[in-house]
């Protein structure tokens, strides 16, 4: 399988995967390490057509505990998976789902203002969506089977795992 990639392809796929993994892991760990962190204000700041769903979530302190926990640890696990190339496809799917949720909560729409303003100018496509697309690329080029823990897993786990897990 490793023969299918040129060295340059492998290198850039590796860079892309570790960068995204690094980004997710750091975001997750910062939240895990900060006992005061909560997504409440982010959710309350939601805009667009799904606004009320996210605001309702934020209104319930009980639910928020679980949402915060899931968000923090999903970020950490996805980040670790991508960074180490471990269960990469599963991590990619998780990452895409999270980024989709962020996009639905904070869509880049014209005339919509957010508390934490985007640092550039965006319309529909923002950095979350670009990261999401990059994850799509990693899904169809599972190069972690060449460099990454998946290189080992691909040998020991049944072939069925390859479709969506590694």
């Amino acid at each position, binding site marked *: 399988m490793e023969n299918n990639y040129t060295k340059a392809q492998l290198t850039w796929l590796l860079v892309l995967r570790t960068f995204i993994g690094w980004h997710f892991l*750091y975001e997750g760990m*910062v939240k895990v390490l900060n006992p005061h962190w909560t997504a409440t*204000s982010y959710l*309350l700041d939601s805009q667009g057509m799904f606004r009320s769903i996210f605001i309702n979530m934020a209104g319930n302190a009980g639910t928020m505990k679980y949402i915060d926990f899931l968000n923090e640890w999903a970020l950490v696990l996805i980040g670790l998976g991508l960074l*180490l190339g471990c269960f990469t496809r599963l991590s990619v799917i998780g990452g895409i789902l999270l980024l989709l949720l962020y996009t639905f909560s904070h869509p880049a729409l014209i005339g919509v203002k957010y*508390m934490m303003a985007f640092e550039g100018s965006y319309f529909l496509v923002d950095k979350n969506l670009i990261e999401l697309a990059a994850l799509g690329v990693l899904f169809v080029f599972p190069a972690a089977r060449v460099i*990454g823990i998946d290189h080992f897993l691909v*040998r020991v786990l049944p072939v069925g795992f390859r479709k969506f897990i590694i």
Partner: protein
Amino acid sequence: MEKDNIKKASEKTETKKSSAIGRRDVIKTLATVPLLGAMAYGLVKTRKNVLLDRDISDVFQLSTKNAVFLQPLENGKQIRIGLVGFGIRGKQLMRALGFAEPSYMDSLVKAKEVNPDDTRYDVFMEQGNLNVVINGVCDIFDVYSESAQLTGSNIKREGTNGKFGPLPKRYRTWQELVAADDIDAVVVAAPDHWHGTISIAAAKAGKHVYCEKPATWTVPETYLVRQAVKESGIVFQLGHQGRQTACYQKAEEIISNNLLGHVNLIQVCTNRNTPNGAWVYPIIEGSNPQTIDWKQFEGDPARVKEYNDYMKSFGLERYMGPEQRDKFSLERFFRWRCWWDYSTGLSGDLLTHEYDAVNQIMHLGIPASATSSGGVYFFKDGRTVPDVLQTTFEWPDRNLTMLYSATLASSRNRGKVFMGHDASMEVSNILSITADSDSERYAEKIKQGIIPTDKSFFTYVPGQSKVDAVTSATELYFAQRGLLYTYVDGKRYDTTHLHIREWLECIRQGQTPSCNIDQAFMEAMTAHMGTRAYLEGRTMYWDREKEEIVRGEKS
């Protein structure tokens, strides 16, 4: 096709190789693991920034306890209410009791249809049932009286086509209502010049009283109300619903923990800029001499005499009238707050809320002196009460001044600010504290860059438990916009509802409400001192021994 072959071939190769893992495979497998070390370094640094740099618990000690409200008894007895006055405030108080006009319910439903984010309908429907029944209503304007009856019968909070309960009895006079056997408690929402008289009569009849602010219109009746309430032992609550604001309880703790240093100046304000805010209320359709009992509107002869005597003996005739008291006037009926003949002006209507909040937070009592100035500077509509007013109250024993500054013609936002040597605190539905750049208490933390001085460093939002750290930018953003406080325990609440609930629960549980008759006495006297200082143009002093207002020299 070719691709598939390659894929299959490579999978075969992989399977073959799987049994033999060499050094190169180990390197390929674990190639990115060292990155975790770099990440760990960053995280250790971050954690320091996140936690240590915001910790102020050594100089800022505050409990995590949230506001406490008297909780309703289960199976408490039903309380039978009589309402006097169904104007703007009377309608609001009825809603707080759980009874809304059907047309109002229609408007809430419509508002929600137009804007799904408009939650007023849901909030009202979720408002707790206070286990009361409206047995009697009295308003001297027929339209209001009939509307009050319909509202009192709207026991299921329905719109125009809903099913209603029995109509409460309409009383033509408040005297009959107060005397009724099937009424336990009276809500007084009549104009200011009637507050004292109705409260006294209700107390003497053994009825519990919830009276709108201010407690009284004249100085002499203030003593009589206190006497009547104390002698009868009824439960009296004055309508300063601010007492139920969670932030005020926290503010009290902050002051008593000395977190602001010595508070030497308090600024409280009224900032309004609309005709409605300046009491130019609409003239309601159907109002005329046949539908309004003007004789009753004129007031209690005993009170009117107290008012006339005071005004005349101090040469204040220019503030009286200008129309004769017995002359029917729709303006005076609906916009009575604009004339001293019925009103207590800015002092009674709006200063009292501010004073009561400050008194709740700092327990100041009646000030030693009051000095006022102002005038009718914008609303030249024939009113006699000022639309711009400044009053300074002094508490030399506490070494502080409270400045009340009001205008009805500019809405520039000026908050309720407690200024201390170490920090200042602004209180509204949220509370924020800004350190003083010359503070001693926070000097070290300011030097270390942990406490900023160009913006507030601590914000309390009801329901939020964190109290030991500098507030983050995000929290501040929401706190300033009041987006978080509306949800306490997952539910939004209305302070007027809580204030009435407290009164009813005190009746049931034999307790004393937060804005009881002693608080009411202080509130009324303080407002009267400010008013008299304005009218007479001289400082008014409070003789604590004799419990009397004493005039200063004319300046």
